[in-house]
């Protein structure tokens, strides 16, 4: 049996190279898991062991009982959930209008959204810090949510627009004839139909904002306003007292929600990555 596309027929080579690829990707993560299960002494052994000589869950217990852990977890959840909620609240009406309405200002408005998506967050660090400082808005949770929401807003609008495009127009035309307003059509007809799409944008947005370090680190460095990501980096900087087994446990705990979300929605995640990225 032979296949038409360029397939290597030697099974051993294929299996061997595949294993190598997967190992390259997963190996460093296995090292992280292994380190998190070691005790302090084994974590700095002269001969590093991939399999811990003795397994301990003490590091995870220390992470969960750490005095600032709950605050950091709360902030991470609040910022990610808040940013996604705000992005959806502003993105859904705009995406619907972009799909369904035609009016003269539409093109400049879409161009504005496109233009802002090309402004990198790092270029705005210094002006935003300056402005927030002047307004006394540094270390403000609401401000962090709004800034993170603006980062994911353009992609949210485009995704929603595509999802609404996929809903047949006959449905809203029938509803319009029955006297429904566009508001009612969006809320009662279109939204339920594009729910899976909304879930996908929400998850992708949540992963992006959960993983953010720089926004929170620069604009809300206060110890009660920071997130798990910021706390992790601060531990790494504490080069005198760093405990690698504890830090790895912390890194894994802070990644767990993202990995769970990714595994739950990997199909959409991959569809989101490749959306339009392949030229036909």
């Amino acid at each position, binding site marked *: 049996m032979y296949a038409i596309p360029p397939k290597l027929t030697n099974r051993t080579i294929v299996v061997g190279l*595949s294993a190598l690829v997967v190992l390259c*990707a997963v190996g460093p993560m296995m090292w992280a898991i292994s380190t998190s299960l070691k005790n302090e002494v084994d974590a700095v052994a002269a001969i590093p062991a991939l399999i811990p000589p003795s397994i301990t869950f003490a590091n995870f217990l220390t992470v969960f009982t750490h005095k600032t852990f709950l605050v950091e977890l709360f902030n991470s959840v609040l910022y990610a959930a808040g940013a996604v909620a705000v992005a959806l609240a502003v993105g859904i009406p705009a995406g619907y209008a972009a799909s369904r309405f035609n*009016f003269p200002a539409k093109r400049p408005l879409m161009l504005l959204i496109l233009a802002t998506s090309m402004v990198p967050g790092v270029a705005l660090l210094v002006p935003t810090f300056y402005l927030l400082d002047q307004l006394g808005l540094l270390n403000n949770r609401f401000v962090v949510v709004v800034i993170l929401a603006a980062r994911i807003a353009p992609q949210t609008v485009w995704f929603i627009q595509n999802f609404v495009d996929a809903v047949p127009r006959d449905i809203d035309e029938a509803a319009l004839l029955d006297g429904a307003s566009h508001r009612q059509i969006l809320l009662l007809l279109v939204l339920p139909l594009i729910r899976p799409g909304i879930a996908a944008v929400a998850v992708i947005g949540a992963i992006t904002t959960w993983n953010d*370090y720089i926004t929170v680190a620069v604009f809300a460095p206060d110890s009660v306003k920071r997130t798990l990501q910021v706390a992790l980096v601060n531990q790494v900087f504490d080069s005198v007292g760093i405990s690698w087994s504890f830090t790895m446990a912390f890194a894994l705990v802070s990644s767990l929600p993202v990995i769970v979300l990714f595994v739950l929605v990997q199909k959409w995640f991959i569809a989101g*990555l490749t959306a339009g990225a392949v030229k036909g």
Partner: protein
Amino acid sequence: MVWFLPVVVLLLAVSLYPTVFVIWMSFQKTRFYDLTGFVGLANYVEVLSSRTFWDTTYTSLAYMAGSLALSLALGVFAALILNNLGRTGKLLRVLTLLPWTLSMAVVGTIWLSLFNPSYGPIGHYMKQIGIAPGLMLGDPGLALWLTVLVTSWWSFPYVMVIVTAAIQSIPRELYEAVQVDGGGWFPKLRYVTWPHLIPTLGSTALTLGILYLTLVTLLIVLTGGGPLGATTTWSFETFRGTVQAQNIGPTAVYSIVVLVANIVLGVVYIRATGRVSA
């Protein structure tokens, strides 16, 4: 119009206004975080005539080019290999994509431990085969390339997913034509798969190029821009200037350099692909 109002207000306040403000800031004389008056192009002259600027330019471009070369090569390789495995390949791709979902803070932490010269496994195995590991990320000649390696580990799965989608969209008839002419897997790869991948690779390179040019967190964790500035890119310099806040005028100029580079790549992307989103 009203439907767009909320998103427009949000983007005007958070993105557009600071963008205009940073341009204005770059023409101001500054002391720490105080703006003390218009100075024309003085900040630009100061930055562009400094050695640091040209060092960071080299570092930015070398970092971007190195990361692109490695992540594209690894990504294409991984896609071609795992594409041989059907359903198992699909499962393995999900597993391989995991690094891409991790935050740069976590990626940096893991690799900092792997590269640790005293008790990290990489240094240990180098000693085993008789190479002195040296300072690893603390070595000014090596730090940038190790950073490139970490960046590629994190982003090659993205390339793999995009390339896989491109491979799977190639019509079977084209392969059949090569088959009829007696071509094996290499001619198929060379004359069918490869030409189809080129445009996808181009757009992926632009998307990742933008990402690499604007990335800071990974550099903060891995090297802090050092040693001796060896990994200080334009974006890292922007971050450093913002938090150290000794004189923010030149920092505003670096911000504008990053902004312009980003817009140039973004416009090339849109011209080349006719698409707006990455």
